[in-house]
């Protein structure tokens, strides 16, 4: 590549980025949303859950208790969890779970749940009738179950104690000694790598593809539709320079979006998530270098592929209707890759398009540099990226790109 060629590629890329950045909607879509998506999700989701839980806790619910001999202390416990009770005699049913004539009043909400309780010598039987599609009814059932469980636990302890046994030794004869986390010999860096390897490749793959859609279309089919391509094609630049300039621009915009999204995700996990289950992965220099290489190869392939498909289209509408469903080509392999076991994995997996890079990222984030795998994914990815670039160059060399349906 001579100096003039480099200058023209830079000029094209710079103009594309500047023009793209001047559209505020684009900035929102490519920069702001990826940056804020995960932090907002991590803030808003717990807030929403807490508010919903508080709302349910505050509810005063009505339950009917059907029993001929209901323990008084259990009744007190039930009333203590904001349940208004009314006691009735047990109906004549074959089993306590059979709704019988009580079906309608549980269904129409005149009572939130119905507890049937029967004593047989030293044991009790019970059943709760509820409506699983009603939140009030589910909450009433949950409170009843929690109270019954606590009451049962207390009964068990009393009986063990009354029989002269030690309660703890009887209930918990097998115990873990010491700190459970000390038993895992993986370092915290390795554990962090393992956790990150489960979603970083997925986010990277999906976001790289989806955030490149809009700029790819705008810079190809968009130019075609607006009639700006003809003047550009009359300039002293080759079609390959044009492709490379646009590729650099799309890759820059997409790269910024992906990096911001991953930053947002790591920030959300590190500072906003309630548990401290993740830290920084401990990676060797070789792993870091190979991660960068894998992302670069993936970006070359994906962006070139998208530019080619968009340039093939006669209009923005046509390009959109081709590129959006083509996301499946990334999404399915990305989801599939998440469930593949990396221990003893066969080498051919690292030669499958898209899957190879995602598996490579998973391995590298766990600081595993396996020469055989690296060779396979590097060679296959170079081949796929070259094929995508060749396909894109073919599309950019078409004569009909100067015209559009509109």
């Amino acid at each position, binding site marked *: 590549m001579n100096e003039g060629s480099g200058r023209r590629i830079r000029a094209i890329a710079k103009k594309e980025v500047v*023009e793209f950045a001047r559209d505020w909607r684009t900035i929102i879509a490519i920069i702001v949303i990826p940056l804020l998506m995960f932090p907002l999700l991590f803030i808003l989701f717990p807030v929403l859950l807490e508010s919903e839980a508080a709302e349910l806790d505050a509810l005063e619910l009505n339950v009917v208790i059907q029993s001929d001999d209901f323990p008084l202390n259990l009744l007190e416990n039930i009333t203590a969890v904001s349940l208004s009770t009314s006691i009735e005699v047990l109906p004549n049913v074959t089993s306590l779970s059979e709704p019988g004539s009580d079906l309608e009043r549980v269904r129409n909400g005149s009572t939130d749940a119905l507890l049937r309780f029967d004593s047989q010598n030293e044991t009790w039987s019970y059943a709760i009738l509820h409506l699983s599609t009603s939140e009030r009814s589910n909450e009433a059932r949950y409170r009843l179950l929690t109270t019954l469980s606590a009451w049962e636990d207390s009964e068990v302890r009393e009986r063990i104690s009354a029989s002269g046994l030690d309660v703890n030794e009887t209930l918990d004869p097998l115990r873990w000694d010491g700190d459970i986390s000390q038993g895992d010999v993986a370092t915290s860096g390795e554990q962090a790598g393992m956790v990150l390897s489960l979603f970083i490749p997925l986010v990277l793959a999906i976001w790289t593809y989806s955030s490149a859609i809009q700029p790819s279309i705008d810079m190809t089919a968009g130019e075609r539709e607006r*009639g*700006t391509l003809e*003047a550009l094609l*009359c*300039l*002293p630049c080759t079609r390959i320079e044009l492709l490379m300039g646009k590729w650099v621009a799309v890759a820059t915009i997409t790269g910024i979006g992906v990096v911001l999204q991953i930053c947002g995700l790591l920030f959300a996990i590190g500072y906003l998530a309630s548990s401290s289950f993740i830290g920084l992965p401990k990676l060797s220099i070789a792993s870091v270098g190979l991660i960068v290489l894998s992302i670069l190869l993936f970006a070359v392939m994906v962006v070139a592929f998208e530019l080619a498909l968009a340039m093939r289209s*006669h209009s923005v509408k046509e390009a959109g209707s081709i590129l959006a469903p083509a996301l499946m080509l990334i999404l399915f392999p990305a989801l599939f890759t998440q469930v593949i076991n990396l221990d003893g994995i066969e080498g051919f997996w690292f030669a499958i398009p898209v899957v190879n890079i995602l598996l490579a990222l998973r391995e590298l984030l766990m600081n595993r540099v396996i020469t055989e795998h690296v060779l396979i994914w590097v060679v296959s990815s170079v081949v796929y990226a070259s094929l995508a670039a060749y396909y894109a160059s073919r599309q950019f060399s078409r004569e009909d790109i*100067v*015209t559009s349906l509109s």
Partner: protein
Amino acid sequence: MSKTLLSLRGVTKNFAEVEALKHIDLEIHSGEIVGLVGSNGAGKTTLLRLMAGVYTPSNGRVELSNGRPVEEMRQELGVVPESTGLYSRLTAWENIRYHSRMHGVSDSVSWARTEKFAEHLDMKDNLSRHTKGFSRGMRQKTALLRALAHGPNILLLDEPTAGLDITSARTVRALVRQLRDEGGTVIYSTHQLAEAQQVCDRIVIIHNGEIRADGSPGELLSTTGTENLEEAYVSLTLDQARPRQEEADKEGKLSSWWRRLFTPRTPASTREVNEDE
């Protein structure tokens, strides 16, 4: 006679089954203004695109003097396409500067030239404005400034006065003549015969993809034995003009079939229209 700059020999251009240009033989000489005159769909734009190297001929050759490929001319080429091709989120000056940079011309040189021509075209105050809100005339003027800013020797102008008011069109024509006087070559496509007569040294009449006449206005009159160019044009283009041809190969076969599947037949009579209602 000035030397040959560009020549087209036996050039044919096909779009799918359609022959858009048929056996074109044409020579463009340095320092002349050549008018390409024809109706819509005659083949003027296709011819300009062949000259700019955007299209390659299906048959024949388009080459510079001494057989160099036409792409080598692009460094000295300024183009105003029919669509103007301006980026709406860039200012007029940024549009101009972008093309100048692609020609390897420094910003200071292209700014000096832009300023000079912008004075002529009454565009100086609009150079820092985004082109999004520009009228058709302002877009046309900006495209012209963009084509001139890097100091081209050859200008390809596709309907350069379309959308311009009378005064601006007159200024553009004067500018074109001035460029010719300074040694430049201009290929000027228009469907306005009167305009071609005012500006061009030589007029090439194209009709249905063929060159029907090529010469100075006086030569055209004497060849056709008519008294004015309008009569000359009519006598040369008596056969019905065809529709625009390039559209034919733009749509894929499947897309075309699918679109037709959901397109109702055009009613054959008023009665059928009434029945539809």
